[in-house]
């Protein structure tokens, strides 16, 4: 593996949308959740995380709200919108298609 942070173009959006499916999280929470669920393989570069969050918010896929985090600090929580859920559905399907296709190629190539 080249680098833990090497994410395919466009997959960060998918990961964020997926991570927010269960409920609202703040930026650090999102990055930690992705790291945990990928068992430490995927480490999100902060330089990409926040721009991606703002971009998704601007596109209406997320909403944000200032609240209080469990540590008692003021934090900004992101929630998936209905449009975000739909978008996640599309992107997940596309990703499955893509990985299946890549797998086919790889299997074919090694066969």
């Amino acid at each position, binding site marked *: 593996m080249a680098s833990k942070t090497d994410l395919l173009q466009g997959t960060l959006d998918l990961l964020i949308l997926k991570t927010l499916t269960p409920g609202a999280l*703040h*930026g*650090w929470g999102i990055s*930690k959740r992705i790291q945990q669920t990928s068992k430490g393989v995927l480490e999100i570069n902060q330089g990409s995380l*926040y*721009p991606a969050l703002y*971009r998704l918010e601007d596109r209406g896929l997320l909403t944000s709200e200032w609240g209080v*985090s469990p540590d008692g*600090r003021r*934090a900004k929580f992101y929630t998936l919108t209905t449009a975000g859920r739909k978008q996640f559905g599309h992107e997940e399907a596309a990703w499955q298609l893509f990985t299946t296709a890549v797998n086919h190629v790889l299997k074919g190539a090694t066969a």
Partner: protein
Amino acid sequence: MAFFLFRWQRRVQLQQARHRIEREMDEEMRHHVALEAEQLVRERGLTPDEAHRQAMIAFGGMEAHKQDARVSRGFALFDRMWVSWLDVKLGVRMLLKYPGLSIVSVLGMSVAVAIGAAGFTIFQAMIDPTLPLPEGDRMVSLRNATRYEDGPSRQALFDFGVWRRELKSVRDLAAFTSDGRNVVTGTGRIHLAEVASMTASGFRAARVAPLLGRTLLDEDERAGAPPVIVLGYDEWQRTFEGDPDIVGRTVRVGGAVHTVVGVMPDGYRFPVNHGYWVALQPDPMMALGEGPVCAARRMCPAAYVFGRLADGATLEQARAEITTIGARLAVAHPDTHKQVQPQVLPYAHPFFDIDSPEVAWMARLFQLGLALVLVIVAVNVAVLVYARTAARTGEIAVRSALGAARARVVTQLFAEALVVSSIASALGLVLAGVGLTWTQSFLRSDGGAWIPFWFDLRLSPGVILYAAALAVLAGVIVGVIPALKATGRELQTNLQQLSARGSRMQLGRMWTMMIVAQVAFAVAGLPFGLYIAVNSVQRGTQDPGYPADKLVSGWLSLEGDEAAQKADSATRAEIELRALNGAHELLQRLKSDPTISAVTFGGFPGSEGFSRVEVEDAAVHGVRHGIVGLGFFDVFSVPIATGRAFEASDTLAGANRVVVNRVFAEQVLGGGNVLGRRIRTVTRRPGDPSSEIETGPWLEVVGVVANFGTQPDFDPADAKVYQVSSLRYAFSTSVIIRVREGASAAAVAERFRETAVAVDPRLRLHQVRTAAEAEREVQQSLLALAISVVAVTAAVILLSAAGIYAMMSFTVVRRRREIGIRLALGANPRRIVGAIFTRAALQLGAGVVVGLILAGAIARVMGVGPLSDSGPLLLPSVVALILATGGVAALGPARRAIAVPPTDTLREE
């Protein structure tokens, strides 16, 4: 205004939103780092400080992340284009750091802004003036455009009645004529004033109530109604000392005694620049509205027609309506109206011959076109700044490498340029203000009767906004273009070569062309400016050849003679006879005045016309030809060299005698005894220069006088021939009085008008003043013209010199290493400097050649000027000056080049 408020409000909102978002972004990212640090403390047992440090390292550059975030939020542009106070401070610092460049840029651009702002103001006053009347923008002028040879006609009186009856979209239709009349007050003081003869409806259209008494009434227009007059505020104050009981008093105006019925408030000078209003009576204006008869004879008096758009009516409706009426009249009276196209125009337009919307648009385009002068100068300065920017490529490259966005660098350079262009704009506005104030007072110095009251050349808020816009435009050109070039593709190379040698930036062909064009402009323009300047200074110091302060002149005419030109021959003969008798009597009375030593009529020396004369049995020459009255040489104290001056018998028909000046005697007649020699005038047929058909009778030379005369002479040493005439020419010449030694010219000037009015109250004297005063006026306007021409050309020379300097510095910086090596290898420094000079010399040379061609063309068009007169001296001096300036500009960089110790340049490798 609402638009600007909205923009401002929007800007404030944006700014607030931006602050909020920045704050939140900062808080969010700090929160992230704090959580990360806590985790590190928890899981790895680090101290809080160490944990925070590592969390920060893991997070990366917070500012860079913020910048990325801003980009994704769409705030990037806003952020980049925001000119900060720091940028402005940097701009001021750069201004002080490069004083030479700053002075050149500020001076060059301020002259351009001055031209732009002055042009804007003048055109604004012509095209879109604000009439200081209630709803002044609804005032309109009506007139007939014709296709007669003599251009658009004002003879609209014949249609006035028709328009007044039928037009629905224009109300309070009014007409006025204007002429100079003698105003004689109860105390016997006399002055000549422009009097408006106006229909009563003119006052209704203007909607301004009188200060005292009443305005004109319709009854005053009736034939036989007692003559009444309304006074302007200034006239009431100045001429009638603000007499509170003025209403009801009488004042003699021209041929009739008028009763004052009212005084208008201060500032009311309607319809053009008037302070006296009398009723426009049908007599002698012929039957108002009985147009076709009047038009057929083309003898209708000229009149201005105006009105006010009816409530709810638009200019377009009025235009459509009058076109319909015009078409109907053309069908009904084809003889007189076929060629006539009636027009409705914004009130002020006809006074500046803005006949149609197209002309107005052309004028507006020209107004904007003047801004081009600034664009040209700004592009020039931009190249200079570009040359300076070249010296800063290292700084820019380092800044870019440290993460400054290209837009950020561009914004900073824009801010620097804006500082310069703003100072230039402010200075330009001051220059324009001074020039316009001078122009305004010059235009109004002669009473300014025909300078409209709304023609206001003060700097308006509009022109200040315009100058601000020009400053931004110049800032964009001067700052942004060089910045874009400097931060372009070459940036990487610049960074790489930072340590090796300055810059790889280039000054291309455009730049060369610009320097050539500027040098050409300077070579072509400066001689003319200097010529006028030298001429006006010469005139100030030159002895005019006659005692100018002892000569009083005035232009004589008879009230109503304008109308006489349109009248039938019997009426005209009667008016001419009255005028002639009056003038004759006036001259007699003046001659008998003990304080006056001589009186004559005719032009001033220098105002002679041009004629071609044939010398008997010899060639044809072009000479100055003056028609003078008896006593002309006495009045001007011109000594008779040979022969005699004119005598009364010379004025008789068939006498055919002339007096010539010495130049004529020597150059045209070949010197020797010229008395008795004969000459005659030769007239060319118009449009056929080869034909010389009409010849006058042979004229015998009876005397030779000294050369004299300065006023509008370009060369006082012209060959001149004088012919004497009887008084019938009095209406095309002025009356000139020689005041006896010891007598006061001012007192004579005052008595001059009194004497004329005593002879005939309708005899008018215009521009009564001493020759010295007249001369001063001409000098002043010449001097102003010279100052403007010299200022503009000096700015251009300065720019081209700076351009050459920049180009040379640039070359030296670029070739520093090569020069160093060549010097190290023992090259002759002179040859190196020569090689560098070659390019400057080529550009200067090309500019001079183009300039000389241009100067030749201008001289050909102008006919007279620096090339024909003092050309042999002036033109080479100008060329030498420009070459010297260019040479000096090139010298500094060249010296810098050879002053470089070779070891230094080699060590830099």
